[in-house]
């Protein structure tokens, strides 16, 4: 199955989409490019901390709202850490263009975990004390066992989960290196899961140590090998962040927060997403020198034999 086929088969208008990775680490960028190319309306996005994935979907909504739109976001954090705030988040929220429900990283991770466990809710201490419990569906109850207040959070079960991993087999068994983020929980909780991977390996190699399997095959509906599938974000053992490109992309959106023109952003989408067949064509636009440098930086940080 190609990524184009997987997106067309498993994503629908109005879906709640669970986004894997963490900020700009292992974001499902290739899958989001394909979603933007095909165009989906009234999406709900669910994630703990995300960056390029929602930024690309929101940017598409800012230039072609007839083609791509987000209705609602359930999140802990949308921003780019060292690379700055999210201009698209500011644009959409400050104009009242989307609904949202604020949670924390643990709240969202626990909500996916409840979904993954097949349970309707999960108790945590996270939202107690502050306003998150007042602006979300949190229920604070007195614990029936200790009598102390505890927060109950509704499970999150996205219609489709988007996950990028280092390695998988054709059945969907996945190996994740570096942080697991909340990918296994999202995959297990979602009705469908699309996995993109850097390396597609044989079933025998992938399952040689069964405890390495973070996401088991029954949770996965489609597996597509997409090298650089999280780029310009990072993927452990494969490539480090292309911060320059992230900053350049954000700089195209930023002027629109203050009412500036959408021309430059539109041109970016025309050139990099609408004007290409697939994600490989987008990656081809980067210089080999830069791709190699980002690989080299990552192998230095990992400090291990290839």
């Amino acid at each position, binding site marked *: 199955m190609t990524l184009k086929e997987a997106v067309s088969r498993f994503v629908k208008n109005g879906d709640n989409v669970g986004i894997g990775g963490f900020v700009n680490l292992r974001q499902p960028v290739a899958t989001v490019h394909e979603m933007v190319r095909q165009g989906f309306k009234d999406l709900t996005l669910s994630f703990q901390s995300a960056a390029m994935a929602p930024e690309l979907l929101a940017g598409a909504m800012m230039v072609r709202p007839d083609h791509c739109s987000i209705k609602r976001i359930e999140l802990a954090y949308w921003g780019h850490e060292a690379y700055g705030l999210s201009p698209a988040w500011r644009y959409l929220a400050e104009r009242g263009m989307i609904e949202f429900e*604020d949670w924390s990283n643990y709240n969202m991770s626990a909500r996916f975990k409840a979904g993954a466990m097949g349970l309707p809710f999960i108790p945590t201490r*996270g939202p107690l004390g502050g306003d998150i419990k007042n602006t979300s569906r949190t229920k604070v109850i007195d614990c029936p066992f200790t009598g102390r207040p505890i927060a109950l959070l509704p499970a999150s079960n996205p219609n489709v989960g988007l996950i990028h991993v280092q390695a998988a087999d054709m059945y969907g068994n996945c190996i994740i290196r570096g942080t697991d983020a909340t990918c296994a929980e999202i995959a297990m909780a979602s009705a469908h899961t699309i996995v993109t991977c850097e390396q597609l390996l044989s079933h025998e190699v992938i399952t040689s140590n069964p405890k390495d399997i973070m996401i088991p095959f029954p949770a996965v509906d489609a597996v597509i090998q997409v090298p650089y599938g999280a780029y310009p974000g990072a993927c452990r053992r494969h490539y480090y962040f292309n911060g320059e490109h992230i900053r350049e992309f954000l700089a195209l959106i930023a002027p629109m927060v203050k009412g500036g023109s959408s021309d430059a952003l539109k041109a970016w989408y025309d050139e990099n997403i609408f004007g290409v067949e697939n994600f490989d064509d987008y990656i081809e636009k980067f210089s080999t020198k830069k791709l190699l440098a980002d690989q080299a930086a990552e192998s230095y940080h990992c400090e291990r034999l290839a």
Partner: protein
Amino acid sequence: MTVSTDYTAQEIIVVAGAKILENNKIVFVGTGLPMVASLLAKLTHAPGLIPVFEAGAMGPPLKHGLPISVGDSKTGTGASYMKGLNAAFELTQRGFADFGFIGGAEVDMYGNLNSTMMGDYPDGYQKPKVRLPGSGGASDMAASCERTILIVPHDKKKFNEKLSYITSPGHLDGTPGARYKAGMQGKGPYRLITTKGIFDFEEKTKRMRILHTFPGETIESIQAATGFELLVAPDVTQFAPPTVEEVRLIREEVDPNGVFVKRAAK
């Protein structure tokens, strides 16, 4: 130690943050300046400091330098334990984090922090004046770490009696046992570091109290830049300016690319 005469407001925050951290303690580190301060602490008086990053890594030596994200590969290399977000927050909720180290855009006198929105709350929640990134893991750290260290740039508009939104709860309304009654654990905000000084929260009232002034600041100048009445510790002292060596470490070893510590002159 030679005192530096050329350091920025962010650099003194980083030095102050590093000094507050204790060797061999577990610190749950938020993104930005807390990461810089934790790395400086490891390179100076606290080599045994055990950072936890919410994306999952615990105890990395950070030999490859400053992570630019709490999910950066540099946090994974040499870590003694690494799973995902649930595992990191579960160990915090279980009570294993001695410190949580977080930032915010707005703070009140009880150390409650806002990193969600500026504007009318609750009516304007869905259409804020300024939308901030959101809690991330800060509210979880605030609810469960043993003590929290806060960083907020000092600005009268950001030090308010009432916050637009309480993202990360501190001492709540300051009443005795407020945190426990709300269901939280840990002692709450321990220190606040700003661009003007270091503050604690007075034992009985839980109100923000000036502990140390940064060079060039006085109790009066700090009060004048604060939107509520500050308490003043009985023995306020001036925080020593960073040494030449500390500034060199920040600029050449900790954050040589100016990822979080900007080079703008003070």
